[in-house]
């Protein structure tokens, strides 16, 4: 059977998805809620159309270093959002926390064999979700948070605020239309 591939699947996004993106999307790895996670990272906003929640369980490897022992995701969003979520769980599983924190946008895009330009922000979202999950773990354990991670957390928080501002705009538009309708 010839599997329907991106040739039959021209996304409306100005660029087609790769076969690997479609594979992750169709059969995502490590999805679902995790019971008693050690850390949770929640990023995105339903108003924009992408929400990613990443759960991590932390263990130790043979060298007694802390590693991402288990990882799961729950994502609401487009094909790219689901595929990047799935890909980052594969990439992070078994890695030391230091190595997991080094997973970035470029790495995820490479893992997926590319993303349409308009969808690149989804790979940022996935890397942010993982950083937030590890941040959450450090905070719960009252660890000293590495400077890089703290900065990342601050940036994500700032961006969250911008998105909430954007949401406010939507409320304004709605009100405008409502009032016009009333008038």
């Amino acid at each position, binding site marked *: 059977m010839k599997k329907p591939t991106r040739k039959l699947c021209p996304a409306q996004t100005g660029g087609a998805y790769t076969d690997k993106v479609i594979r992750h*999307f169709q059969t995502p790895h490590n999805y679902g809620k995790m019971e008693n996670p050690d850390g949770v990272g929640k990023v995105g906003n339903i108003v924009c159309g992408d929400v990613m929640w990443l759960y991590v369980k932390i263990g130790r490897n043979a060298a007694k270093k802390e590693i991402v022992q288990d990882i799961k995701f729950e*994502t609401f969003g487009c094909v790219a959002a689901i595929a990047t979520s799935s890909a980052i769980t594969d990439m992070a599983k078994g890695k030391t926390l230091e190595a997991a924190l080094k997973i970035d946008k470029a790495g995820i895009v490479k893992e997926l064999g590319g993303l349409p330009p308009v969808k690149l922000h989804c790979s940022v979202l996935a890397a942010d979700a993982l950083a937030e999950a590890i941040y959450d773990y450090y905070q719960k354990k009252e660890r000293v948070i590495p400077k890089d991670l703290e900065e990342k957390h601050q940036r994500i928080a700032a961006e969250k605020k911008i998105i909430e501002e954007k949401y406010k705009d939507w409320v304004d538009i709605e009100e405008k239309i409502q009032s016009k*309708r009333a008038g």
Partner: protein
Amino acid sequence: MIIGNHMVKKTTKKAKNSVRRVYMDYAAATPVDPKVAKKVNAALTGVFANSMSFHSYGQAARAVLEESRAILAQMIGAQSREVFFTSSATESNNLAIKGVASANKHKGNHIIISSIEHACIMESAKWLESQGFTVTRLGVDSFGQVNPQDVANAINQSTVMVSVMHANNEIGTIQPIEEIGKICREKNVLFHTDAAQTFGKIPVNVKKMNVDLLTASSQKIYGPKGAALLYVREGVKIDPVIHGGGQESGLRAGTSNVLAIYGFALAALEARRNMARETPRLKKMRDRLQAGILKSIEGSHLNGHPQKRVPNILNVWFEFIEGESLIIQLDLRGIAASTGSACSSAKLAPSHVLIAAGMKPQEAHGSLRLSLGRFSKDSDVDYVLKALPAIIQRLREISPFKKSEETNS
């Protein structure tokens, strides 16, 4: 051959395990009717000359062009000299908005449109604003309908035109065009309607509808792409947007796309022949699709007007579903449909139509438009009704949002 490789192949009986293909995006584009294709193909090499040429070759092309014009004019209740050919509904709408605004500057600088118009009207109006015109965008009710009283209230001394589409392309809601037209006549304001989604599907008559300008398109009625018309009532002042060699009585320059226009006229004749039979057939299938979806999928809702709607469009939205994922899942099962989700648009903004109808962005993200047409079959409806619930369930399984109270967390 590159072109051949990109064609979506139809499933043949011989191909085992191949994906069944169901096209449910007729509101976006229609395939050319085989009967139309046959006649256009037969004329493809023969009717080639410039319809402006005086020799017999040119006059043969001219005859095809004028015969097509007469057929289409008669179908919308107009005279031939009131019908102007363009390349697309987008071009017709640009010409209507910009051309009328430009030619009637002495009368005023205010135009009125609805907030659910097609992008080509929205953007043309926005451009006029940049040229010093003022634009009123009328809101719609939750069914996507314009209130004619709002039109009356919005008209002022400097209003030159009103443009409200006949039926909306996303939700299918039909507007009270006759009433709006009557108001515009009383107030001496020109009225344009974009009938791209209705011409060939429901009766379109410029006199009954009280319109001064009307847009209709070939590619929505199983004709070739590259042809559309703008009806301009005799006596209406309008400036060209494309200047040149004086074709289309000087309103639209450029060598006429005679064969596409010929196909447009043939497709219109075919549509008229089929309408009485096709309308109830499509409506029956659409209503079955609607009932089946709303019944079998929890958290599914209808968009648009339940009755005042073109017979072939169904728009629904699903709680906690993102439309692009839904469209691709459907496509992987061979079903072609569309969505108003932000993620599926080049601008990354949710459908302005659904937002204008009062939906929240997160609701618009979960919208699905299924539009039926001439080659839709009952078994297509069965196939979609079978595939859709499992796709929705699967996407919700992956999502962190499962119940409505979790939206705000």
